[in-house]
């Protein structure tokens, strides 16, 4: 029944934001942020179980936690940046949203550097062995 609660909260927030946007646009943005935070907190406990399943699956595959941790951080950065950018767009600040996305892309690329280097070294090793 969690999904009913989530949908109900979402619908109520949508209606309220729609009413407030014409009267008090600044309060509408705050309500949007509050609704997002509430929805996130509702599913926060379930995220832990998903991460546990992924960790267990990677342990079964024998995949190093170094790379899995990097992937998890990248997914987290993407989500947070996406939420922030959407809130900014809802508030009519598309330029700020674009900058948030740009910063998130840079952070993702920085985190991905070890993986890219590892791929490069693996391929070079592969080509060296083949040659």
């Amino acid at each position, binding site marked *: 029944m969690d999904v009913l609660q989530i949908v109900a909260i979402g619908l109520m927030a949508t209606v309220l934001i729609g009413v407030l946007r014409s009267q008090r646009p600044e309060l509408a943005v705050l309500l949007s942020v509050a609704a997002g935070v509430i929805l996130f907190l509702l599913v926060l406990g379930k995220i832990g179980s998903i991460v546990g399943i992924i960790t267990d699956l990677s342990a*079964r595959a024998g995949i190093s936690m170094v790379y899995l941790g990097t992937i998890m951080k990248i997914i987290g950065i993407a989500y947070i940046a996406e939420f922030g950018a959407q809130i900014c767009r809802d508030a009519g600040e598309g330029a700020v949203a674009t900058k948030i996305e740009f910063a998130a892309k840079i952070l993702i690329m920085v985190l991905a550097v070890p993986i890219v*280097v590892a791929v490069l070294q693996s391929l070079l090793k592969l080509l060296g*062995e083949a040659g």
Partner: protein
Amino acid sequence: MEIIRNLVQSLVIIIILAMFLEMLLPAGEMRTYVKMIMGLLVIIAVVQAVGSIARWSFEEMPAVVTGAGDGRGQLPEILETGRKISARQQELGIEQYRQGLARQVTALVNLNQELPVLDVEVNVESESGKPGFGQIKEIILTVGENPEQAGPEPEGEKLVDNVTPVTVQVGSPGTPDKPGAVNPKAVAGIVGVLTNFYNIKPEQVKIIYN
């Protein structure tokens, strides 16, 4: 066959994990970036899983496939640990052998009552690569003062009058630093016994006069 089965098993789990992670991705513009990074991870996981069969070394990067699931990739560590254990056991064996020889030499030299031996040290060849591995390099005897030729006894315990010792000067190389303290003949006898018993050269037996 077992290796290929493990490889296919690892690849299947890696692909399932990638698909599972892809479901978690955000829907917006960030999705393409995260998908690219995950694709790179899958590539490196597959390459390393295949490379571990061909015994390529990936020491310069953290291993994606740690080998926790099927035991692959642990062979160099096991071999290295085995070499360390073997070297340690060999070291302990050499030390035990050296101590046993020292006890044997002590028992031999104590047969001669004229020469009070305080300490015996035996050095053996401990490098396994050399041809004379385990052979005696030298025997070092620490000789104390002969109690019969030592200083005067306490007055209360004196039973007979002191007799002036007769010293025989022998110009041999084995003349001790304290000619009056020990009998050179006894020293020569001990050296002869040790050289004959262990088949070593007289130069390998060193006497230290304490």
